């Protein structure tokens, strides 16, 4: 095909000629580690005793790699590696900036903690049908989504984690799970298809899929280019992944059905990937269009947070309460996206990291509450204070965190976002964020009052639980302690995270560092 003449092509202009430093492999390590461990787990499917340990080793390695990557990114700025030694934009680039690396690290921590919890929560049948391989492959997709610098590749990782999460969702094959999983799968596939359509359109417009290349070209592309259509399509596709109003009903329909660890992983991670993708596309690739859409995004944010928290108030199943709180959190994050200022984006990024930790912790809390108190229903739960003061303390701190009260981590992103809203004169956004926090307090207060303080369930409901003889899940409570410590630490010493979040936000707004990392010459 290319024939002899092509041999004259300067190889240096197409491929990397010199070796790359081995430390650059940190950029892909967060994808490869869970992938290899997932494959290993599949090959030794019947050695179920070892699954948990192997998965934990893999996830520990993942967390280590993520941490090393983040520290390197913070030190040197964005890092990039283009697969197959091709020069960008021809190969697939992985580009780690402060935003992606922070999210990847937080996600890795969440997965690790969940894997510990799963040691007790996932029974033999769950292991036989692949809980741990699903978990590892989901983390492959999650890490890939946070680190890739190529928009089609992002689509691929979306597929990987969506399908893996589907596997986790149906583990157990109960009627409710199948019902929830059907809705989850169909709606998410439609959403992913939208993403694909948008990406095809984008390729047709730009002739490239490399995000740095797109960001570069978007500044100079002709006025006639349909960037606005692309921006709205991405807004919808990722808004749906993030569970933004009005395309968010799949979340409450499905998140309460799987095993609690799976729900914790979903609540912690999945919506945040949607937020990440929104930040990446709308802020970095289409900043002009984002500014035009700002009011729309703002109203979507307000509707998402208010309706989310009202939904939480209307539930009596703890898992459903938390499902709706995930949604209201998404609204809060979208507020930062609507503002688009550095402080606002920084608030969104901090909130996302906080939300990964807190939502996971809350779902796990629901699991431990169920194990001790015998139910997920607030009508039936009672007396947990008497049964475990430790759990009560954790629940209180987590409630403060999700409501955005001191001394937990939720306060600071809220401060940042409100400050950004006040600076931008966006009263309605600031008001909605605070109202959401207030209503969240009420929703969490209800759980605290009913499940923990109350000694016996309401009249007419059979008591399912006796505090004196209740189970005391050591692993569950231990994991919750492990999650609560960073949540409180972030509340008391938020400076490092705020600094990183500011850096990540600045990196999004001023994409030159990102572009330079991919195209070192600055041209290309």
């Amino acid at each position: 095909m290319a024939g002899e003449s092509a041999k004259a092509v300067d190889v240096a202009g197409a491929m990397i000629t010199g070796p790359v430093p081995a430390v650059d492999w940190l950029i892909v390590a967060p994808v490869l580690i869970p992938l290899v461990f997932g494959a290993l787990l599949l090959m030794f499917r019947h050695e179920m005793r070892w699954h948990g340990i192997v998965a934990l080793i893999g996830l520990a390695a993942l967390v280590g790699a993520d941490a090393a990557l983040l520290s390197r990114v913070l030190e040197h700025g964005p890092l990039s590696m283009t697969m197959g030694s091709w020069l960008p934009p021809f190969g697939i680039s992985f580009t780690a900036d402060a935003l992606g690396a922070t999210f990847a690290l937080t996600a890795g921590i969440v997965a690790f903690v969940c894997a510990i919890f799963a040691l007790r929560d996932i029974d033999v049948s769950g292991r036989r049908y692949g809980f741990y391989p699903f978990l590892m492959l989901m983390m492959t997709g999650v890490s890939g989504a946070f680190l890739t610098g190529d928009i089609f590749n992002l689509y691929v990782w979306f597929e990987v984690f969506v399908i893996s999460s589907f596997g986790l969702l149906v583990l157990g094959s109960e009627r409710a799970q199948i019902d929830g999983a059907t809705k989850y799968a169909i709606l998410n596939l439609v959403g992913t298809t939208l993403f694909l359509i948008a990406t095809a359109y984008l390729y047709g417009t730009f002739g490239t899929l490399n995000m740095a290349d797109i960001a570069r070209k978007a500044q100079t592309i002709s006025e006639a280019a349909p960037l606005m259509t692309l921006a709205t399509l991405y807004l919808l596709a990722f808004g749906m992944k993030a569970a933004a109003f009005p395309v968010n009903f799949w979340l409450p329909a499905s998140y309460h059905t799987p095993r609690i660890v799976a729900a914790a992983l979903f609540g912690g991670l999945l919506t945040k990937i949607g937020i990440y993708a929104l930040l990446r596309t709308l802020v970095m690739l289409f900043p002009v269009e984002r500014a035009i859409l700002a009011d729309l995004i703002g109203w979507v944010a307000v509707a998402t947070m208010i309706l989310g928290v009202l939904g939480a108030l209307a539930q009596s199943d703890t898992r459903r309460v938390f499902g709706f709180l995930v949604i209201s959190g998404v609204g809060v994050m979208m507020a930062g996206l609507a503002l688009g200022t550095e402080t606002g984006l920084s608030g969104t990024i901090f909130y996302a990291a906080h939300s990964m930790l807190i939502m996971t912790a809350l779902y796990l809390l629901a699991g431990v509450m169920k194990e001790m108190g015998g139910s997920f229903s607030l009508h039936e739960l009672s007396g947990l204070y008497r049964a475990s003061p430790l759990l009560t303390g954790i629940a209180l701190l987590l409630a403060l965190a999700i409501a955005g009260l001191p001394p937990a981590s939720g306060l600071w992103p809220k401060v940042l976002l409100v400050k950004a809203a006040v600076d931008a004169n966006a009263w309605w956004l600031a008001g909605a964020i605070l109202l959401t926090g207030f209503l969240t307090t009420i929703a969490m207060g209800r759980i605290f009052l009913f499940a923990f303080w109350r000694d016996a369930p309401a009249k007419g409901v059979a008591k399912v639980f006796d505090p004196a003889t209740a189970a005391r899940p050591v692993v569950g409570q231990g994991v919750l302690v492990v999650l609560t410590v960073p949540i409180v630490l972030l509340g008391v010493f938020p400076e490092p995270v705020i600094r990183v979040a500011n850096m990540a936000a600045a990196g999004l707004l001023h994409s030159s560092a990102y572009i330079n990392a991919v195209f070192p010459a600055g041209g290309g």
Partner: protein
Amino acid sequence: MNGDVLLILIVVLPFVGSVLAATFRPNARNSEAWLAGGVALACLILAAIAYPAIVEHGAIRSESEWLPTLGLNFTLRMDGFAWLFSVLVSGFGFLVVLYARYYMSPHDPVPRFFAFLLAFMGAMLGMVISGNLVLLVIFWELTSIFSFLLIGYWHHNAGARDGARMALTITGIGGLGLLVGVLLIGHIVGSYDLDRVLAAGDQIREHDLYVPALILILLGTLTKSAQFPFHFWLPNAMAAPTPVSAYLHSATMVKAGVFLMARLWPVLSGTPEWFWIVGFAGMASLLVGAFFAIFQHDLKGLLAYSTISHLGLITMLLSLGSPLGAVAAIFHMINHATFKASLFMAAGIIDHETGTRDMRRLGGLFRYMPITATLAMVASAAMAGVPLLNGFLSKEMFFAEAIETHAKSVLDTSAPYVAVLASAFAVTYSLRFIHTVFFGPKPTGLERQPHEPPFWMRFPIQFLVLACLVVGTIPALTVGPFLHTAVISVLGPNTPFYSLAVWHGFTLPLLMSAVALVAGVVLYLLLNGYLNRSEAGPPFIRRLQAQRIFERVLVVLSWKWARSIEARLGTRRLQPQLRLLVVAAFIAALLPISLDDLSLTSLRISEIDAVFVLIWVSGICCAVSAAYQAKYHRLAALILLGGAGLSTCITFAWFSAPDLALTQLLVEIVTTVLLLLGLRWLPKRIEEEGPKTVSLGTRFRRVRDFGIAVAAGGGVGVLAFVAMTSPVPLETVASYYLEKAYVEGGGKNVVNVILVDFRGFDTLGEVSVLAVVALTVFALLRRFRPAADSIAVPDQQRMQNDFDEAEPDRKVGDTIADYLLVPAVIMQWAFPVIIVLATYLFLRGHDLPGGGFVAGIAMAAAFILQYMAAGTRWVEERLRILPVSWIGLGLLLAALTGMGAWLFGYPFLTTYSQYVELPTVGATPLATALLFDLGVLGIVVGATVLMLIALAHQSTRGLRSARVATEAEQEEA
């Protein structure tokens, strides 16, 4: 001691103590009290040590870096006013700990109590000495949280739970408002540092955002200090243990609101907005609180309303904007704390000794506990404003201020009358407190004989009452200098001349005091009879309580509205959600497009190839019919879907992509077969009986959905058309791929080189998806039990089996075997052929259409044929493939191949290619990409076979369950 260390210690010590306290044994009352008392005393001593420095320098500061990016430092700053509050907080803390040691019963889990109490003390101290407004808000919120925990201490009691929740909700709203208010102040001033904010008064008052900031900050302070209309949480908080009421809800936490108003007084006050909002809230609280207090039967309820009233007095003084008012306000903060805390403690003792706090049941206690009674009488007198007690002094100052005209308005004119009226009420309820509890007939129906409490339990009251007396008689010599330090730190150069003398001569305020005293006594005499018979709460408006309104609002908002909104907007059904999503997508894509942008004109008829169009028309027809038939004839729909797939396949071939065409074709075949296998187990469609009548609503819904589908599908088509027909961007990666595939990718088949080399990572991801899908199908189907109506053997099979059974020389299954004899043989013999084909496809993939993916599918097709030919059982007995392991191995191989580049210092998935001379085969391309492709092949085969097994296995299981079912029926018969 260094000021830095001292201030940090004051804040940190209580929290450390709190953590320690939590670890003690549940009934360690003594050690808890020693610990907590020690901490409180230490804080008090630290404050005392700081005093000289404060007098000398005005304030001591400690600043350490905390959040430099937000411009927030951990600044502590103690001036005279903060010092005064620190002493109040730690001093009262000490007294309350002492009292609580005797008050708490041995059955109460005290570690928790003292831990919360100490943590509260820390938060409160932090709040008063914060030198940074954001820090102040954080400590402020912490006080609300610990107040919540302390109110709910006896959590088994529903009243305590509700009271705690209400307090948290109300102060929570306030806290949020305060936060925004403070952020606004920061926005105006450019700093959150208290010193800088205090120096920027004019700037703040003249700013556009002054009014919103003021309202939000006042929302915080008025809720915290339980001011009208947010006052109702305080009486409900009385479910807390009495030491908590004495400490938090009279002496310290409720003072936080007025503290902050005084703190920011130089900055915020002096405007009409301030005067109206603060003045109205204060005056209303003063009057309403005092009025309601008269009609309470619960001792603590009376004291709670009285607290609201007195805080209202302080608020009103602050509203005036006159320095003298501020002085009086600060003075009254001290005085109120002193007498009210001692009264609460006395009420607690009465409760403790008699078992009730209901004034209708109490009486004549003077003879049982004369000392306590005397102390309570003195404190009550202070509360009523009787001369020679501290309450009198600040009230005189209040009267003097009320007479003055500050801003001519209704509020100002009515102030003296309201003041006298409220004072009269205060006299009435104080009198009632004393008279009903300590005098009159003996109490009836008490569980035990009341007597004096232990000395140390009474000691805090004695101490405080003594303070009331001493301050009331010789104010200038006792509290004078400290008050002056506090006042100077708030008012600075504006500090007015004021006199703390007991006797100012026959003045108007004195007359007002006298009138109030007399009126109060008369009012009590008039009401006495009524009060002992009535229900709790004031007459006529007993039902109209803010608390009820609040609860109603809360229920409506959080339950009724929330549920109805969820019911209306949320749906748990799939179809509406899909509809919503598709409509949203349509709008999202359409919205930004103005029709001019669509360059549809670029299409010329001459460029259209009729055959190609025909292929597409038939493809579209197939797709539309498939959608149309999906509900009624699944089989037909599936086949039609295959037709649509084929036209895609031909399109690929048309545009010279034989690779894609081949892959598409094989994928179509395999998926159709797998779907057909799955179709067998779907539940039957329920046939409607009777004539079909379609209601108008259904008809409308169908038309609408049809419209949506057409619009959205057409929209995507237009979008695709525009994208494909609009001019190609100058440089695309596609042209580059064509150029470089062979030179650097080492392969002539561009598509394959793109798949395994240029975009190998995508492929890795996609095969992972395939692997996960197969695993999910497997996990799903292993637990799947077919629906009852699809278990039955199909008609054809049943007839064949019946025939076999009827004939003596035939076994069941023979007919099928006969039927399929020829195809089965062909299919079985085809197996090696197909495997060879697959290998060929795999190897040649590098240069010609083929590759790991296609080869894998082809191989999988070979297995499918075996299943069809010989049946599930026969194949499963002979199957040597472990599909899950193949998947795992494939993934591992693909990933490790890519990682091999690490050894050579190249990026992930860098390939190495070379032609190798093999005997007989000739020059064979050998790229590391081939290994990668092998991994892909493993995954594809493993995944497809896994799905096949999972689906095919249903038939054996289905038969088994069918057999069990018929056997059971026969047994029953």
